[in-house]
């Protein structure tokens, strides 16, 4: 039975206006579906809003206020839009297109303008335009024990795992309503005992490079029994946030994992005993090189061949990586007909411009882009491609739902080499 505080009940009864009432009605419905018994205060949110393609069910000239009421508030009645909770720091998540560079990504001005119009509407509500799936690079960092919502699956795993903050992989509609009400069901990762590891992964190999970390996440997600919480006990080298980002993104592709402890590196897993809460694990799984090889075969086409569409930056990359790429490609020139897209967030791009990295990249013919990615931009942006190269596996695997052309995947430098040679070479 769900118990609400007086404040929450007042909001549900409409004392704080219809906008908050509708949002709280949805939060309460969601809590009942989950079987939650109470709500908790949520203080950080990222929202996958704008003219996203899940809104393709609406006519292009639909009023955004109508869309918002029906889609996000689950309301048959049109509601005047209000503000998100002053207690919940809220910003946009990944976007459906770059904030300005729609032409370079083969999208129409009409689509770009509609996205801006929708974003201006949410900005009025207090949702900051940030356009990032890696918001922790630019200051969205929840503290240990802080309750958050995010519409980016990799950010759920990062924030639970590295920051020790608490959040579930809810979904867009609830994230919006949570940011409006400042409440989310206290369920799942919001409850300490649900965060304890139940499945121990032991690796019979080491992961060191970014691709190896990325591939490991994909592999663990495949092997993780449904509904279990993973902990890795060995084998991770060069531990740092950019590699963790890849692991956390790819484990979310192949599983519903919301946290992935690593013994000795993540705050709730200083020891294996701590990660397990002193209990015996339900599963102990040995991960082999062959498991990694199987994953690679699922993500990347075999063989070699010409390529014309290369995308790096899934999830959005850091300034450090932009620097490394800029140094690697400085002075080179892309062959005619080949695109190289490098995806980051808007704020990081400004720092890349300040440091000259953006110029080094752009002078080669490559594009330093912000906020989106080929998957989220959808088919219109990449339907002309004859063969693709993608990093990481979330992009390389996910784009297959949208295309039948070959998709190759490998280490970042190998992907970049493919762009400059126009060819995916065999190892």
């Amino acid at each position, binding site marked *: 039975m769900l118990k609400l505080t007086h404040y929450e009940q007042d909001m549900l009864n409409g004392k704080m206006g219809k906008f908050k009432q509708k949002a709280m009605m949805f939060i309460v419905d969601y809590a009942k579906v989950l079987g939650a018994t109470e709500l908790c205060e949520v203080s950080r949110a990222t929202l996958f809003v704008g003219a996203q393609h*899940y809104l393709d069910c609406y006519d292009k000239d639909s009023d955004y206020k109508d869309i918002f009421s029906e889609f996000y508030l689950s309301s048959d009645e049109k509601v005047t839009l209000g503000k998100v909770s002053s207690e919940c720091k809220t910003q946009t998540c990944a976007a459906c297109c770059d904030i300005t560079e729609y032409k370079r990504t083969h999208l129409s001005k009409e689509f770009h303008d509609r996205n801006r119009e929708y974003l201006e509407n949410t900005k009025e509500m207090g949702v900051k335009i940030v356009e990032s799936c890696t918001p922790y690079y630019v200051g969205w960092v929840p503290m240990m024990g802080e309750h958050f919502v995010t519409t980016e699956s990799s950010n759920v795993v990062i924030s639970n795992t590295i920051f020790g903050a608490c959040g579930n992989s809810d*979904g867009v509609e609830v994230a919006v309503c949570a940011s409006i009400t400042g409440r989310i069901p206290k369920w799942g990762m919001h409850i300490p005992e649900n965060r304890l590891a139940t499945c121990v992964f032991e690796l019979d190999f080491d992961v060191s490079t970014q691709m190896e970390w990325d591939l490991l996440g994909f592999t663990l997600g495949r092997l993780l029994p449904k509904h279990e919480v993973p902990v890795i006990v060995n084998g991770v080298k060069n531990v740092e946030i950019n590699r963790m980002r890849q692991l956390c993104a790819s484990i979310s592709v192949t599983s*519903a994992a919301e946290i992935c402890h690593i013994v000795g590196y993540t705050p709730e897993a200083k020891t294996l005993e701590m990660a397990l809460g002193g209990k015996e694990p339900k599963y102990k799984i040995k991960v082999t090189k062959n498991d990694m090889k199987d994953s690679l075969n699922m993500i990347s086409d075999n063989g070699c061949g010409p390529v014309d569409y290369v995308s790096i930056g899934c999830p959005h990359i850091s300034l450090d990586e932009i620097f490394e790429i800029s140094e690697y490609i400085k002075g080179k020139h892309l062959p005619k007909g080949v695109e190289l897209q490098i995806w980051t967030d808007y704020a990081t791009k400004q720092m890349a411009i300040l440091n000259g990295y953006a110029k080094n990249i752009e002078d080669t013919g490559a594009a330093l882009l912000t906020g989106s990615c080929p998957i989220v931009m*959808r088919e219109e942006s990449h339907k002309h491609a004859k063969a693709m190269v993608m990093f990481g596996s979330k992009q390389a695997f996910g784009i297959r739902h949208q295309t039948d052309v070959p998709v190759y995947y490998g280490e970042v430098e190998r992907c970049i080499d493919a762009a400059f040679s126009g060819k995916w070479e065999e190892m």
Partner: protein
Amino acid sequence: MSQFKIHGRGVYKGNSEGEAVVCPDSIAGNSGALGDVDGVIYEKGNVNYGVCIKDKILVVPCAKGSNGFSAHFRGAQIAGITPAGWISTRMDARLGVAVASMKIPAVADFSESENPLDLIKTGDWVKINGESGEVIVTPKELL
């Protein structure tokens, strides 16, 4: 082979029935894995690739993939493509949002001895009661 009943937790009220589409590895929530307007499963590797979810009882172990999971199902619903109901071995956050947003009958949280993925086959006719949690399965061989 005869008609049988299993019980889970009634998650979203309402009675419905339809042909079961069993997805042992769920349906990915990533953009493009479910057609936003036509409700067709385009997830490469999904055993139900090419199947439209309209009027089907979707049987899954959980949700997976992007946190956009619910939004793609909700978008398809607004476009007129709605499944008849959900059956899930266990409830999780992604699926919970989809259920709350779509407001269609759903049953979840089955006991280990009544895992719907072991007992229900694609093509079976399934009736669900989203309040009591009762699920009545008529195997396709009897249809």
